[in-house]
């Protein structure tokens, strides 16, 4: 009796040592992650509830297969709200200020804070500003190279509103769709990019 008990105990101990490691499931991982954060100011934990776009882009390493890409881009384009009065351009001087400002939507920002586009974080724009990032392509001479036709304006608006319309899983935020910038602010950015007098096009 004693012998077989030791035998059983030994087997159990060996089995414990040889147990293969099983990675945590996605659900378990998401639960640990969400439990690791808390609301602060305007930044709420519900921000961690991923949208379809975020889930698919995460799942596919930001390089989704053709059919998924097409579906995401179509859905993104459908979110774009074009200006009701058809006025594409605002004031490029205000646009420059919006492009230079990086505040907004952080827990250190108040609900009344006006967000910036922080465009210079990732893009070159005017020649004068040498402190620019390279995460996105240069936008220097954006309007000069493309002209100011209706097609260009429509494309540029949609790109700023929801960049995933043309490039699913892009690194660029959805400035219109996510409510970062107002229609008025985007008009100013449009002017910065497309107005022939803008420093971007000089």
């Amino acid at each position, binding site marked *: 009796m004693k012998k077989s008990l030791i035998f059983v105990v030994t087997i159990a101990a060996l089995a414990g040592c040889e147990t293969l490691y099983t990675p945590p499931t996605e659900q378990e*991982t998401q639960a640990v992650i969400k439990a*690791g*954060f808390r609301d602060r100011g305007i930044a709420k934990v519900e921000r961690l509830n*991923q949208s379809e776009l975020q889930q698919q882009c995460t799942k596919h390493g930001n390089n989704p297969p053709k059919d998924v890409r097409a579906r995401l881009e179509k859905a993104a384009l459908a979110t774009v709200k074009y200006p009701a009065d058809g006025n594409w351009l605002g004031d490029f001087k205000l646009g420059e200020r919006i492009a230079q400002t990086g505040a907004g939507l*952080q827990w250190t920002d108040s609900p009344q804070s006006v967000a910036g586009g922080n465009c210079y974080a990732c893009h070159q724009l005017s020649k004068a500003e040498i402190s620019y990032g390279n995460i996105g392509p240069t936008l220097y001479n954006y309007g000069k190279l493309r002209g100011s036709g209706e097609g260009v304006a429509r494309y540029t608006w949609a790109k700023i509103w929801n960049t995933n319309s043309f490039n699913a899983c892009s690194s660029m935020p959805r400035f219109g769709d996510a409510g970062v910038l107002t229609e008025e602010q985007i008009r100013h950015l449009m002017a910065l990019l497309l107005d022939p007098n803008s420093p971007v096009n000089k």
Partner: protein
Amino acid sequence: MRAAIASAALAATVAGAALAQDNTIIQIERYRQMLQEGNPAELLVVRGEGLWQEKRGPKNVSLAACDLGLGAGVVKGAYIQMPRYFADADQVMDFETRLVHCMVSLQGFKREELTKTPYSGAGQRQTDIESLTAFVVEQSRGAKIAVPQEHPQEKASFDRGRYLFYMRAGPYDFACSTCHGVDNQRIRLQDLPNFEKPEPAQRAFATWPAYRVSQGALRTMQWRLWDCFRQMRWPEPIFASQATVDLTTYLGVRAAGGKMDSPSIKR
């Protein structure tokens, strides 16, 4: 001189950098070198050493019995093998989590009081946790980073940390990988190390904690993650939460073999 040549080489590899920007990078490197001498973090290391040895808290004991993974009170070389699994807590902990554990269990401090405001603000005296972290990480200077992946919980921590690293979320759709998963990226003029590659991961893990000149304070790894998530437009990470430990495990494993050079000094 070597640093200037290295900076020039670095400048050459930055895609699309204008000539004016090459010179900017060289000047920034020279500024960094000037700051190395007289790193104010030294003052905090001394303060931290005092706090480690002093009898404190309701139980009036020192941290001499605190086991950081190499035995009770062993501080030399301890920082580089965390995060790791601790059997007495049945948890994978990074250094700051383990320190809080020791301060609570050994010295009788209240966890809520220690973690309520874990980071000193501008012009405020640095917290005890910041001082103790400076002291302990100094004792690992020159040691090779060796975050363990033996225990199944350590492996799980890595897997969760990796998942978190790539998880896109929040109004800006940012993941850590958005900035730190690509070569040769920079925000404005701040280079962004690619943590998928060993060398950038080593440099990052080796140089945090750091004295942040612009803040006039020593900032720890927990702080570095906290400030990243703020700018990612994520909610606030809870100090020493499992999620933050897991992310540190991920970076630490990616940084294997790097030589600790902390506390360092940064902009």
